């Protein structure tokens, strides 16, 4: 008996030594990443755990939460508004990823064109959509897309197209949201992609031109592969942002649940209807969906072995 105790003690001491040694050896990297983990635990982890706990109860924000077990989740699965929100957000995600990524690569490539005159002008102007506050631009877009007097319909009218009820019809109301989303967020990703492009040495291109490669070949053989890491970053960030989309559908609200996003639904439930428990459940579902989606992406990317 004493021997076992002795052995365990020695073992523990050994582990302790290794830990201390590791910490000493790698103290710099650990120190560098420490602030993030500290802040994360306090300001994100704890609230998240708390939210999970609340999601199993009914709470109005006043008084004590009342435990209801899985009721919120059961209600959620039967809730048509929840499913509408998911399908809307799904559409926002797909259109967002396709259009924003494509556009930002194209625009960044153009901005990087070595013979471009007035580069700063173009860079500044193309970035402006992201600079303007979402609320302001949302209001502008809602006026532009107004069914009766919006400029968009008047413009289409010039071509003989009848007025479309952009924000008043359940079928079309997602479109202004998507357009606003692309309009506002493409510049952000363009900047990121551009910073990656700047990292590619000009000599590569010069060498390729000497070898007889044309612009497109250079693009696909040099540019894209070098951008791999940055593009991966964009893809993940875009996915997370799309699933968290809130400002755009909030300001350009359409009839019923036609363009409500998942996050918006959660916010409404929590802060307008004061159903905190239910809102927390929605939040947990949102996080869950994001986790699954990201895991799938990582699996795909991992095959290319770059992390």
């Amino acid at each position, binding site marked *: 008996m004493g021997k076992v105790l002795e052995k365990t003690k020695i073992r523990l001491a050994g582990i302790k030594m290794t830990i201390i040694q590791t910490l000493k050896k790698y103290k*710099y990297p650990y120190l560098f*990443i420490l602030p993030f983990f500290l802040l994360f635990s306090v300001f*994100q982890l704890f609230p998240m755990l708390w939210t999970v706990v609340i999601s199993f109860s009914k709470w109005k924000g006043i008084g004590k939460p009342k435990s209801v077990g899985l009721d919120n989740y059961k209600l959620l699965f039967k809730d048509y508004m929840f499913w509408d929100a998911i399908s809307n957000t799904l559409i926002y995600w797909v259109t967002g990823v396709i259009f924003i990524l494509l556009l930002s690569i194209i625009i960044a490539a153009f901005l990087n064109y070595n013979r471009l005159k007035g580069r700063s002008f173009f860079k500044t102007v193309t970035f402006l*959509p*992201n600079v303007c506050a979402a609320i302001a631009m949302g209001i502008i877009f809602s006026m532009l897309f107004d069914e009766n007097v919006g*400029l968009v319909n008047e413009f289409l009218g010039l071509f003989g197209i009848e007025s479309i009820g952009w924000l008043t019809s359940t079928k079309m109301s997602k479109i202004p949201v998507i357009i606003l989303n692309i309009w506002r967020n493409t510049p952000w990703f363009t900047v990121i992609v551009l910073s990656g492009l*700047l990292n590619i*040495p000009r000599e590569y291109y010069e060498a390729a031109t000497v070898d007889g490669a044309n612009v497109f070949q250079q693009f696909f053989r040099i540019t894209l592969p070098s951008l791999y890491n940055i593009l991966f970053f964009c893809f993940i960030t875009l996915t*997370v942002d799309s699933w968290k989309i809130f400002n755009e559908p909030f300001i350009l609200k359409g009839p019923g649940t036609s363009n409500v996003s998942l996050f918006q639904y959660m916010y409404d439930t929590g802060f307008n209807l004061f159903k905190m428990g239910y809102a927390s459940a929605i*939040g947990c579902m949102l996080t869950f969906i994001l986790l699954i989606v990201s895991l799938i992406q990582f699996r795909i990317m991992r095959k290319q072995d770059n992390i």
Partner: protein
Amino acid sequence: MTKKKLFSALVYIILGIIVFFCLCPIIWMCIISLKGPNESISGFNSLWISNPTLQNFKNVFNIIPVGTNLYNSFFTTILGTITTLFFCSLAGFAFAKYDFPGKRFLFYFVIATMLIPPEVGAVPLFIIMRKVRLINSLWSLIIPRIATAVGIFYMRQYIVDVPTEIMEASRIDGCGDFAIYSKIIVPIIKPALASWAALTIIARWNDFFWPLLYLRSTPKYTLMVSISLLPVSDGLSTPWPVIMAGTTFAIIPIIVVYLILQRFQKAGLSTGAVKG
């Protein structure tokens, strides 16, 4: 030769179209902010200003304490950006260029945290803020975001592409780790820093969800919060041109700052040379 010219022309045309789409809504907003209250805002009529007026702007200044709010916005934005640049690039550097136990797991963890929208836990977050005595303080907008997952992710991806030889060389020369960071890495990643700074500044400036939650009195509000309280609701009947004037005004400082940063970015290009 003509092939190149044709290509050039194409580039300019396409960029021109893009610029047009970017600017349209913004210019329209500025036009409306200059219109008198009697003028039409619908259809093609909205494009003509019969009597341009600055009265709308004056009205905005009457409704909200612009000076104080402006200061608050600047404070949170600038301080927030500096801190986040520093800590994110530091952490990104660690993940990119060091090999330490648990690195892979910890990095995945960082990315995983991006999936949790912090807004989900707004109520408990508020309680924590209260415990740390940061409610109604501008620091509540800076501290939690000193190191963001997105920032670390971005910096790491960027720094990974920096050749390690330079690091090795300086280590042999006897540089300490922090010195490597500040003397070697930082100059090289200037374009990334400048880009990220621009993006962060704008995000912080436009932020209104958190300020609305944490700030409790008008002198503490940032500019965006005050402006977002302008539009119409049951008891508020601010005319639209005034609201537009408010939002236009909120954009001007940020454009100025962005232009300044642009120059910095340009300068950084030549010094951030990475010789292949």
